């Protein structure tokens, strides 16, 4: 069980680094009007961050905590959806490059730590 937890955490760290560089690629595609490629990556991005959120929540159940706020990730997804619906790709590119990318660059520095058992 412990192995599985550590393996998942490792995958989490590797993935979060890839997300940070992927967000720049999405922004670049959008700025080049290469909307098709950007859309494919955005779909992968949403699946990826959904997985990251799930890992954060599951780790909490096993008393492992990380200093990343899943609700902020959710907020980004809502903003992106809104921009995509209006086909305002300038705003979507800005969100990826100047909001999501720095968020994940910071998040990539974080590590899971074990919370102390509540003695009460």
């Amino acid at each position, binding site marked *: 069980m412990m192995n599985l937890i550590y393996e998942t955490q490792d995958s989490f760290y590797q993935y979060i680094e890839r997300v940070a560089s992927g967000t720049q690629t999405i922004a*670049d595609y959008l*700025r*080049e*009007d*290469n*909307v*098709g*490629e950007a859309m494919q990556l955005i779909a992968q991005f949403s699946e990826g961050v959904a997985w990251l959120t799930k890992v954060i929540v599951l780790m909490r159940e096993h008393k492992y905590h990380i200093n990343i706020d899943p609700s902020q990730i959710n907020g980004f997804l809502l903003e992106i959806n809104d921009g995509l*619906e209006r*086909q*305002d*790709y*300038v*705003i979507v*590119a*800005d969100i990826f*490059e*100047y909001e999501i990318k720095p968020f994940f660059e910071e998040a990539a520095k974080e590590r899971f730590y074990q919370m102390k058992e509540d003695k009460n």
Partner: protein
Amino acid sequence: MSVLDRNLALIKNKQLRERLLHPINESIDVDIHPSKKGPPTMKLNGHYLYSRYDPLKDAERFIDSQIDRDAHVYCLFGFGLGYHVQELLQKEPDKQIAVIEPYLSVIRKAVENIDLSNIFLHPNVAILCLEQGQAMIHTLNELAKQQTRWIIPHAWLKALPSSHPLKCFLEDIKIQEMSFQRFSSLMEKNFAENLKYMDADVGKLFAKFNGQKAVLVSSGPSLDDTVYSLKRLKNKYFILSVGSALRVLKENSIVPDAVIITDPQEFVYKQLDGMGFTQSLIYLSTACHSAVANHRGLRIIAFQKGYPQAESYAGKKNLPLVDTGGSVATTALDVLIKMGFSEIVLLGQDLAYSNNRSHALYSTSGVEVVSNENLLSVLANDGTMVKTTTILSIYRRWFERKVAETKHVIFKNTAEKGAVIQGVPFVHISEIISESEHLMECNFSEKINQILKNL
């Protein structure tokens, strides 16, 4: 001397300068504000033309992606704050650049706020404001004759109101460019693979069906109401089905005379796999090659206009080209016209989300229930309003143009709740069935076999 005065003094186009000096009455919303980085950014009709964070970097990346060393002239749509022109000048200083800006208010905002002296002083830049009417049309026509790279920023196109006369035309160009850009490597691979099969080309069938009639089966929702008719029309009408409608036909025990596929993506494989279809497959040279390889019947390749490799190959072999219009049904229509049919009946060609559904039941494109408020509304054949999308509207305009230039063919549309296609009157499917009773029978599959065998 203010920025405005300095800029105005440098504008070579006298007429433009005069117009900028007078009050402007345009019903558009232009907003300019500093970006996070400092230089101003612009919002036109609620859409940002450049990044709110770093507009200059944004403009640089966009223009980088648009450079075409083979182009002789650039035609850029939207002056905005001049950032795209500045970048283009830096990267291609020796080429002619025509900038088309429909709104004087936009140019006015730019000359009030940005030092544009290098643009106005540059001998290669011409700024055209759309109100210049006939002169503008003449200029666009002249540009179209040269090796021109058209640069249409998506953000600018979105900001252009739907009522603007240029909007539809530019959307057509942009969509084709975007889809080409997206699938170019896949298309290249498919093209190379498909050529290896050495299949007969569709040109062999051209003008061989003069005076006969055809049905083009697409997978719009109305196909559910009309599909039954195909049993009666079989061997009277040549039945050409798009790939995604094949499953609908199979569910109704109908075998079309031919199926057509054009999309380069892998999903096309699933449209045909396991359907037991062994009649002719007409495929575009760049269509999904695994679907072509998997087909067990006769295969017929079509080379398309607008894809340089196909044009060059067809040119060398003296083969005719087909118009694609961007979708499988538009390509199919052009193929049917060129095959010589005197009447073409459209089935399942809704070009709209009739009954709030995207496709017929059992279609391999999947039936999506549609509830998006942002959809456009268009008039349907039954007089009601029906929801549609920009892309479907573009295909509809293609149909309308094609039909208008094809006077010798009678077109009929059977999609009662589908969008009205100008030039293609609605005819109830029951009328088509009764007319078919007087037609001579023809085994079309056999006829195709004979034509290709006798070559």
